[in-house]
């Protein structure tokens, strides 16, 4: 019962946030809706018993990515009209009727493709007895340093590369 309520809430947040992200004309609002959607995903993780993953989702997205996006939006808002004319409803290039038409068409096609892939799964999927929720933290930790240790190390290098790369790329050149 509780799980169902939780799932419905999380699904609503996820899909609503995603829809609004796609729909809204305001980039800043889109970002906030994205945050809502990602929180919803965290909730979905929680309903799936992935407690660690849910917390990670919160930390990384709410604490990092979304704020980064907000910063990027502000830093690219325009130099002359930094604050007041920073377009709120007039944020440029958020798409127009034409692009949305194309997007809708490709959306339909994609939906067709994915449904084609998913249909057999829907048909054959039989709901079995589900195990009780257990703490996943320890097991994930063990998996990370045993089976997936290579991927773990690679991702650490990737993060370092991203850190250095982002710092190097975004630094203004001398004399500018």
């Amino acid at each position: 019962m509780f799980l169902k309520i939780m799932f419905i809430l999380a699904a609503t947040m996820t899909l609503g946030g995603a829809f609004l992200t796609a729909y809204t004309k305001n980039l800043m609002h889109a970002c906030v809706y994205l945050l809502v959607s990602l929180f919803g995903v965290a909730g979905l993780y929680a309903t799936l018993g992935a407690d660690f993953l849910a917390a990670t989702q919160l930390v990384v997205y709410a604490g990092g990515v979304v704020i980064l996006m907000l910063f990027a939006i502000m830093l690219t808002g325009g130099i002359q009209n930094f604050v007041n004319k920073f377009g709120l409803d007039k944020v440029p290039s958020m798409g127009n009727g034409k692009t949305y038409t194309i997007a809708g068409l490709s959306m339909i096609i994609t939906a067709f493709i994915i449904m084609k892939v998913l249909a057999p799964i829907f048909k054959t999927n039989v709901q079995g007895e589900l195990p009780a929720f257990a703490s996943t933290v320890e097991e994930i930790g063990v998996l990370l340093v045993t089976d997936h240790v290579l991927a773990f190390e690679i991702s650490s290098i990737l993060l370092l590369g991203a850190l250095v790369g982002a710092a190097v790329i975004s630094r203004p050149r001398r004399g500018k």
Partner: protein
Amino acid sequence: MNETVVSYLSQAPGYALLVEKLSEFFGFDAEGFVTFLIFALVCFVVVNVMSAIGGLGTYAERKISADLQMRQGPNRVGPFGILQFLADGVKMLGKEDILPAQADRFLFLIAPLMCMVGVFASLAVVPFSSGLTLTNLNIGVFYLIGVSSLVGVGIFLGGYAANSKWSMLGGMRGASQIISYEVPVTLSILAIVLMTGSLSFNVITDAQGGLPHQWYIFHNPFTFIAFFVLFIGALAETNRAPFDLPEAESELVSGYHTEFSGMRFAFFALAEYVEVFVVCGVVAALFLGGYKVPFDLGNGELIAKTFPAIHPMLAKQIGNVLQLKAFILKTLALYYVVIWIRWTLPRLRVDSLMVLCWKYLTPIALFNLVGCAVWLWAFEGKSMWAMIFKSGVAAAGGHH
């Protein structure tokens, strides 16, 4: 999955009776309903008490600052002016809710709420006592870090939505400060998680003892340093002086909440004070033994043994109250230190703020983490007091 306050209260004798009666009344198994009811009730109480504490925080701040500056402070409303915060709250409610014409309505409305939600959601895992923990989440520490990062988003959006230069600068400062200081804070918390092997607040607290030498702060030199890193980082994350750049009055009028008025401003203020309380509680739980009472008085077994006449559950409740008192005492002591620092130290510059974070605190926290790991590996997790005691015994030629 996780213990909650309800699973603790369900040990009480009246619980089963209540469930049975209600089931008869409704005609279906009412256990879930009762659980929800109790949960909602406790949450309501906690949130309200915390709001009151947040309000009292403003009063305490004013009183302590007055004390530090040899003034009187609020002394008209109620005894010693203790009801001042209620008067302020009423005044806030009565103020006009101004919405600037250029503002982004939607964000302007949700920004204070985001702050509030972030702070109050983090209350769910704060270990007030071994019983009164709303939920003893097995990833409590992680959850707290995740949820409280909503505050950063709230501040940023608040600063942006008002569409004013002061707010904008304050919001950006606040967000960047919060993201930056999350790194050393998380690393120094991680040191404790490493020592304990758990992310749960209750497990971490239970791993410590009631007396100072059993606290993690004095466990080894690295945790001692980690305590200070965490405390400094926590000050910065809650935008307290000397890191109150986002709301620097002298430069940015009032920072990100310049344009907010009435209840919205009250939300921001409340969120800030409650967050300080939460952060102090977290520091106390991680480093200062949390709700632990000396000599294990807290779990009630000693009381039950000494006074056999008392019902074990009651003994447990008495222990819980003692624990609550210990926790609140430690937290308020830290709270006092925070206020004390605010009225003692001058504000930092933005660049020196970032220098402090990235060039000092982060390397120190990293070093601490490694040091803790080495300590754990080298001394099998024994505290330095245990080792001093052992070597003292060995020096005295004693056996054990």
